[in-house]
């Protein structure tokens, strides 16, 4: 009995696919037939109209080309499920770094270390983060985007951005939900592969932990004016610096609020500009950072309180008559100002002198200005200046400045030059040199040779 069943199953397995193939072939034949009929119909129609207009002598040749074209267009129409696949793109980048100081000792003196990794890449050759992007309209109401970053060293995949965006709203409203680069300042919203320099400005490193991507919701309204004007608000979990702890605050409400506005327009045909103002307010709870204390021991410190960040940003782009194929110039700058008030706890793990708490209040600022000039179709040259001001940092209670030697008053700065070559829209090779005064009294000469390429779907870049 069992054997009979098995035989039947085997027979079925052998016959069914053949059947399926047969029916597939029949379907194909049918489709081909339909296509042929369609073409014949088109041909006939074309001949009729051509004859009518008294151009019969040309019609045969024309009909022939049109029919071949029509056939080509019909056959180029994808008929499989994959026709509805989202646009997929991959960004690959690699870098050779030559650093005069060990990147493991990288530190921006005068500022609280962020939770993000702001240090330069390791010396020598390294693969940068690879990006994998999927984007498509979900339906008539939503558009979805997922951008995953694959880190080469710890074999982990992170979600850089993963959000949905409305398409169906009117009156200038759009809503975004999920994880996205926060609209705080200008550079923060731009993916690293589209940056004009290999690394982020120092201000973005100390105030936003390199780049802030928030889990939350964004509402934006574009005003019905001919001058561009938008207003927006973001409510997030506070999952990353300057919020905290990592992963977001444990409460039902929001961990961060960001309000922003932009104004922009054109000056003649050659110049366009965009200026923005944003205010990010977070309430970090137990935001920890590891640092060396006065005794040279690595301790964990923690901050709970309120962090307020103001950013003023501006970007101006010029190209002759608005044609950026041959020459263009881009000027970009941002000014950051942050105040933090709350309670700072020293050595929470009792690794050195034992836990001590006290009030803390800081007023710090920083800015950068960069210009990039495209002097030949594929070649650009850029210069960037970074400046931070550690401002005031006052401690209360039992805390002493000796517990936090790296937070002492210091104004880091950096000069950067770069030249890059983009043989097509999809590839870029860049050489960059920076003299970085992030560490007090220890200037770092940094040389990067980097490639960035993009595969797949053609991305559109923000202004």
């Amino acid at each position, binding site marked *: 009995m069992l054997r009979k069943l098995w035989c039947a199953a085997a027979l079925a397995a052998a016959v069914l696919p053949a059947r399926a193939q047969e029916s597939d072939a029949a379907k194909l034949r049918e489709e081909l037939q339909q296509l042929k009929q369609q073409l014949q119909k088109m041909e006939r129609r074309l001949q009729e109209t051509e004859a009518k207009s008294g151009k019969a002598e040309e019609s045969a040749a024309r009909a022939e080309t049109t029919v071949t*074209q029509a056939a080509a267009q019909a056959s180029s129409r994808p008929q499989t499920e994959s026709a509805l696949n989202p646009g997929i793109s991959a960004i690959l980048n690699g870098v050779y770094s030559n650093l005069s100081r060990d990147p493991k000792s990288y530190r921006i003196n005068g500022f609280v270390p962020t939770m993000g990794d702001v240090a330069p890449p390791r010396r020598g050759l390294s693969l940068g983060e690879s990006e994998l992007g999927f984007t498509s309209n979900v339906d008539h109401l939503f558009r979805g985007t997922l951008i995953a970053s694959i880190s080469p060293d710890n074999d982990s995949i992170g979600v850089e951005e993963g959000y949905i965006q409305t398409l169906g709203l009117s009156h200038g409203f759009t809503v975004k939900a999920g994880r996205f680069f926060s609209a705080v300042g200008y550079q923060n919203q731009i993916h690293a592969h589209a940056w004009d320099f290999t690394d982020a400005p120092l201000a973005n490193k100390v105030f936003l932990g390199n780049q802030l991507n928030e889990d939350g919701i964004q509402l934006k309204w574009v005003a019905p004016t001919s001058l561009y004007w938008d207003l927006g608000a973001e409510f997030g979990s506070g999952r990353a610096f300057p919020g905290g702890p990592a992963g977001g605050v444990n409460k039902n409400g929001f961990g961060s609020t960001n309000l922003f506005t932009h104004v922009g327009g054109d000056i003649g045909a050659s110049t366009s500009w965009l200026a923005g103002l944003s205010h990010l307010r977070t309430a970090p709870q137990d935001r920890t950072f590891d640092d060396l204390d006065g005794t040279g021991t690595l301790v964990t410190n923690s901050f709970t309180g309120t962090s307020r960040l103001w950013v003023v940003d501006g970007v101006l782009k010029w190209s002759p008559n608005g044609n950026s194929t041959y020459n263009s110039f881009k000027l970009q700058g941002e000014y950051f100002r942050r105040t933090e008030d709350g309670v700072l706890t020293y050595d929470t793990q009792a690794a050195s002198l034992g836990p001590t708490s006290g009030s803390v209040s800081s007023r710090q600022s920083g800015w950068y200005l960069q210009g990039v000039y495209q002097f030949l179709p594929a070649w650009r040259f850029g210069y960037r200046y970074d400046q931070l001001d550690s401002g005031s940092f006052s401690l209360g209670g039992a805390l002493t400045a000796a517990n936090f030697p790296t937070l002492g008053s210091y104004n880091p700065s950096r000069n950067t030059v770069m030249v890059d070559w983009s043989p097509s829209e999809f590839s870029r090779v860049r050489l960059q040199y920076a003299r970085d005064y992030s560490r007090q009294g220890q200037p770092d000469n940094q040389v990067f040779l980097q490639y960035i390429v993009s595969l797949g779907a053609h991305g559109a870049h923000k202004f």
Partner: protein
Amino acid sequence: MNSISRMAIALATALLAFPAAAALNVFACEPEWGALAQELGGDKLSVYSATAALQDPHHIEARPSLIARIRNADLVICSGSELEVGWLPLLLTQSGNDRIQPGSPGFIEASQFVVKLEIPKVIDRALGDIHPGGNPHIHLDPRNIAKVGDVLTARLAEIDHANSGFYQQRADAFGKRWQAAIERWQQQAAPLKGVAVVVYHKDMSYFINWAGMREVGSLEPKPGIPPTPTHLAELVDRMKRNPAKVVVYSPYNNPRAAQFLSEQARIALAPLPFTVGGSDKAKDLFGLFDDTIERLLKTAK
């Protein structure tokens, strides 16, 4: 009046400068579609062209001013076939405007309504910046203008019912003038038949096809890749053995490579308007074709 209040007033006027409220706002990605809309809609439309003849429609920044315009648009008309892939999708998602999203009557992708040329059989970026859907520069075949005009008329009537009679009337009048012009152009362009031409970018293919010319080379080694010295030297060599009659380029191309080839291989040089506004005579669509044919005839003699 102090300067601050003057600035405040200037800002307020700029902010309140709404496009004329009564007219339908048309956002054209390229000047040719703006010109077509103007022909069909007259003063019932307020037409804005996102690009000008001196700009390469492949490479446009998604500028704030364009977002502001598309936010208020009632109708968007673009060439499509991925010509605007680097900037239009961003404008659409940022617009907060559901009337002009793809699939709605307010969105027209012109190249969908004509028979496209040069649909690549192999799709590979190593072949340059190719358009999988076919060559998107469809407007230089005058018959395509008529086809897109029909679609545009129907959409205008759909969006703005109250004036549908007006649009139809204008479309009929335009259609008659256009047909007459096509017949005239066909006669004028007869001597161009079989003329060998070198192009800068493959943006003249529809005209070449319509006029029965022969494209024998392009200054770009691959679509979208700027001319290289090696490729130009090769082209000069080829032209010496097998000369083309004329080398053409568009206003947004750098003329140097075309001039070089023209001088080295001693073939005529013809800067063509490419789109409305691309030359003094190309003030409208009629002028565009008049001028293009005239310039080519001069060199074909």
